[in-house]
């Protein structure tokens, strides 16, 4: 049975742990707010980009001459996975979920006889994957969003690398694995194929085509030609998709950490209560024991 002093020490240590976890929760909450604002701020660009893609896509005939980013390389032998995790832990199952998902995907592709390469964004994912599949990792990005803000330049670095690899013919299909931010309580690991790119639905745009000129599908003019614009839009769009994934992941990380730290704080509280009860019992037992000793001592002296 632990002594009274040991109980006291344990209570003090759990209390300080609780202080730390509740502070971390608070910090995560404020970072989450910032991350959410940032994700919202990136919305107009993504929407405008989507609009433009749709408009251009409505006027482009997809064929063998189309950019490879759109139609693919005609093979799906070589895969590239971009896995987005966080740099720091203590965020519940946030990173573990992504790593599990990525591992599943990698195993599946390897089992199908495909060639797999991985780009890791975030330290946590890299550390785990390096141990078991180190030879698959071609590049890792650490420190993105470290200053509490994800810059587009960071996303651009990743997308430049992906494009370079693609243009050099190192892979055919690229999949982005990241945590989608659904709500503060729910982040879902998703795998989104970003190369070859699927064009947004074009049906709605085709309805308002002017009838007098059949070859013009929409009243828009393009400068330069739509094919060339499409060729420039696609890489841009890639950057945006990666950027949005990073933003989602950053917001999700803070949300997951907030939830995890909230739980930890609550558990610490429970533990303190339990320890306090035990401490009080032990103290009472000790007092009773001393009393018995004193009384029996007095009794013995009397007799």
């Amino acid at each position, binding site marked *: 049975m632990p002594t009274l002093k040991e109980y006291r020490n344990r209570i003090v240590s759990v209390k300080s742990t609780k202080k730390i976890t509740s502070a971390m929760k608070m910090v995560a909450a404020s970072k989450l707010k910032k991350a959410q604002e*940032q994700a919202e*701020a*990136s919305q*107009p*660009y*993504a929407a*405008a*980009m989507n*609009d*433009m893609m749709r*408009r*251009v896509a409505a006027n482009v005939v997809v064929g063998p001459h189309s950019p490879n980013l759109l139609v693919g390389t005609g093979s799906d032998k070589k895969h590239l996975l971009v896995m987005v995790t966080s740099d720091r832990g203590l965020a519940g199952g946030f990173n573990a979920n992504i790593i599990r998902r990525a591992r599943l995907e990698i195993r599946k592709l390897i089992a199908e006889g495909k060639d797999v390469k991985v780009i890791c964004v975030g330290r946590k994912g890299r550390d785990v994957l390096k141990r078991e599949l180190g030879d698959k990792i071609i590049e890792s990005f650490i420190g993105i969003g470290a200053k509490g803000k994800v*810059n*587009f330049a960071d*996303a*651009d670095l990743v997308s*430049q690398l992906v494009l*370079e690899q693609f243009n050099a013919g190192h892979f055919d299909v690229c999949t982005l694995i990241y945590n989608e931010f659904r709500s503060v309580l729910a982040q879902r690991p998703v795998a989104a194929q970003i190369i070859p790119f699927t064009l947004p639905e074009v049906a709605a745009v085709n309805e308002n085509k002017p009838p007098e000129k059949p070859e013009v599908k*929409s*009243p*828009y*003019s*393009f*400068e*330069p030609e*739509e094919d*060339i*614009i499409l060729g*420039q*839009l696609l890489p*841009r769009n890639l*950057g*945006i998709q990666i*950027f949005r994934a990073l933003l989602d992941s950053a917001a999700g990380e803070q949300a997951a950490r907030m939830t995890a730290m909230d739980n930890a704080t609550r558990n610490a509280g429970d533990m303190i209560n339990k320890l306090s009860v035990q401490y009080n019992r032990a103290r009472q037992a000790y007092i009773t024991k001393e009393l018995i000793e004193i009384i029996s001592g007095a009794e013995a002296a009397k007799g």
Partner: protein
Amino acid sequence: MLDLNIQGTFTFELVSPERKLISGAAKMVTIPGEEGDFGVLPGHSALVATIRPGVVEIIMADGVSQRIFIAGGFADVSPTNCTVLAEEAVNVNDFNAGDLEQTIRNLTEDMTMAKDDFEKARIARKLTLTRAKLQGVTGKISA
């Protein structure tokens, strides 16, 4: 038919991936298109264009003009709207010609030390950008 009222205004938006930079009514916007500069007035025909690195000049509804450098992007123009998607946008007044010249010198130096073609291409991209910035500051706008 559209009312080509030059006195009127149209909605202008400048958005970067990180946030919406400018949003408001404008009288006229000059955009450095890939195939040449073009001006946008209210009632401009619908157009989608790519933009080369250069300076976008906006005359807002209140007559105040702004000069913003953008590092390339896209313009989406309709008779009532003009949206510019820019990867990087900086107010021209924030540039310092001396700094830019220094950057160009550094990059030119890096260029000679570049190991492979990829690196060279990356530096060349930066170089073009910085040169375009410098042009925006010194006011010499070449086509």
